[in-house]
């Protein structure tokens, strides 16, 4: 059963209908085999001949139509590794004792990165 979010996206971006249909098929395959995977914009850009920016725009659009959901990562300014991850930015503390470098970091929005994974609703529809 097709997930309604793709239909919404097709209406929003009719000029990209071919890409969106291929993307729908691709994401369905990935969701079936790797449901917890983070979706990489570089991989999408390479596979579908898009610029990195256009790939990110599409991924954010897929988040808006609930195929994907966003998560946030606090990047350690010393090691550039992930100090902490949360589903919602509001759940991030105002300071942390970093697991990567051991130092205390005060919350700085410049150190926050966002990535996307499959939404629960989409994974449920894929399993049906």
């Amino acid at each position: 059963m097709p997930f309604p979010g793709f239909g919404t996206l097709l209406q929003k971006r009719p000029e990209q209908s071919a890409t969106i249909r291929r993307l729908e098929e691709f994401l369905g395959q990935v969701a079936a085999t790797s449901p917890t995977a983070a979706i990489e914009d570089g991989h999408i850009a390479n596979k579908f001949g898009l610029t990195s920016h256009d790939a990110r725009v599409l991924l954010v659009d897929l988040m808006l139509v609930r195929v994907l959901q966003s998560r946030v990562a606090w990047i350690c300014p010393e090691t550039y590794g992930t100090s902490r991850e949360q589903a919602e930015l509001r759940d991030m503390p105002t300071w942390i004792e970093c697991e990567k470098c051991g130092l205390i970091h005060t919350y700085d929005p410049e150190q926050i990165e966002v990535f996307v994974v499959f939404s629960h609703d989409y994974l449920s529809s894929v399993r049906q």
Partner: protein
Amino acid sequence: MRMKLKEFNRLAGKAGQYSCSVVTVHGIQSRGEWQKMAVAPLSDAGIRCIPVDLGGIGLLKMLRPEALADRLMPRVVAAWKNHSDQGHEPIHVVAHSFGTLVVARALQRNAGVRFTRAIMCGCILSPRFPWSELRDRGQIAHVRNEMSMEDGAVRLAHTLMCRWTGQAGIKGFICDDTELVENVPFNWLTHSDATGEVHIARFWIPYLLGTESS
């Protein structure tokens, strides 16, 4: 995909990732150009922002400021409700000039409205405005009152025909609870200087995020 919060929120808009939210309210003889300017840096910092447009308010309308504020305060309540309904708490407020009276009346007349932090600049409220009563009702946790002796507009506020107006933007609020109200002097700032981009980035954003240095 790993993108900076700033880029993500610019693409995702109101559906982005936010650590808190803010309602901004402008003053008279203005359509709040600073509010529109502030949306982007606030959003980039993970603060969901709704600028409340009070419409153009001319000086003549200030003959009855309390009645005017009461007529306009539902717009503040609606903005608060938008954030609240979407689960974007804590919700803060930033108000300038006449906007400070509108926010005050919104809190006084709507006991369900809650702001965690409030920034008042160019504040025309009375120094004796009862913030502690609003705190006791659970409607406010902290007020940052940015004052300046050079604020000529606030200097005239005591002439307004309203029991709630006065010169808090110059003299500060009188409040025994120093954990509730913080009067912050910014000498030499004139009435609208605090709404500039640099000031917002340097002082407002850290305060709203709760990361300001003590």
